[in-house]
């Protein structure tokens, strides 16, 4: 299965290894790991809770992966996104793309992250010393996604 939405942590090394395991046609694996930071917009962050829309979130991620596979010739793709309460340093998201060459692997990895940021239903609630606050969407995420259109 190429898409997982889960509370559990993931093993980056094992995920990367699985993308080319047992096959000789993979010449490049590109990956991205997103982590929880300890500060955001001038406030300290002690934790964040990721909410999602069960069912729609998985479907949205699968559609993004399908779109990447239309745009680039890819050997394999893996997307993992966590939900629930996470602390600074914890892993949030993994995107791994295997292809014959680095060009398509790099591009598809970036494309998947840009689309995930604007199309997959996740919302972050940050815990700060002043209390909990919902993270606002960034215009820069929209412009990052629009460059692929």
């Amino acid at each position, binding site marked *: 299965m190429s898409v997982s939405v889960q509370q559990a942590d993931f093993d980056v090394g094992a995920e990367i290894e699985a993308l080319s395991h047992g096959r000789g046609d993979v010449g490049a694996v590109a990956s991205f790991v*997103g982590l929880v930071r300890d500060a955001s917009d001038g406030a300290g962050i002690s934790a964040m809770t*990721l*909410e*999602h*829309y069960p*069912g*729609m979130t998985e*479907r*949205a991620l699968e559609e993004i992966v399908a779109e990447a596979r239309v745009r680039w010739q890819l050997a394999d793709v893996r997307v993992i*996104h966590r939900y629930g309460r996470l602390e600074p340093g914890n892993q*949030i*998201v993994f995107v791994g793309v295997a292809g014959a060459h680095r060009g398509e692997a790099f591009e598809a990895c970036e494309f998947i*992250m840009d689309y*995930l*940021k*604007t*199309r*997959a*239903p*996740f*919302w*972050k*609630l940050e815990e700060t010393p002043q209390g909990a606050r*919902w*993270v*606002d*969407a960034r215009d820069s*995420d929209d412009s990052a996604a629009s460059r692929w259109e």
Partner: protein
Amino acid sequence: MNIKVLYFASLRDAVGRAEESLELPSGISTVADLRAFLADRGDNWSALGTGRNIRAARNQRMAGPSEPVSPGDEIAFFPPVTGG
């Protein structure tokens, strides 16, 4: 017609509930109609008003304001997404 409506994240906090089943009066045929109907209930529901940046999904797919609403639909309203 009867539909299910879901609210997520800051919008759920603002309206004070996560979901509801609704019997819609006649004349509501699109997502925009539904949103206006909900916002017109006043008080907390003004969080769905036209000036707010709210997205919608119909049956778990992103839906624009002109998307039709049919009996049995699951319509969700939520703020712009912030995952990743």
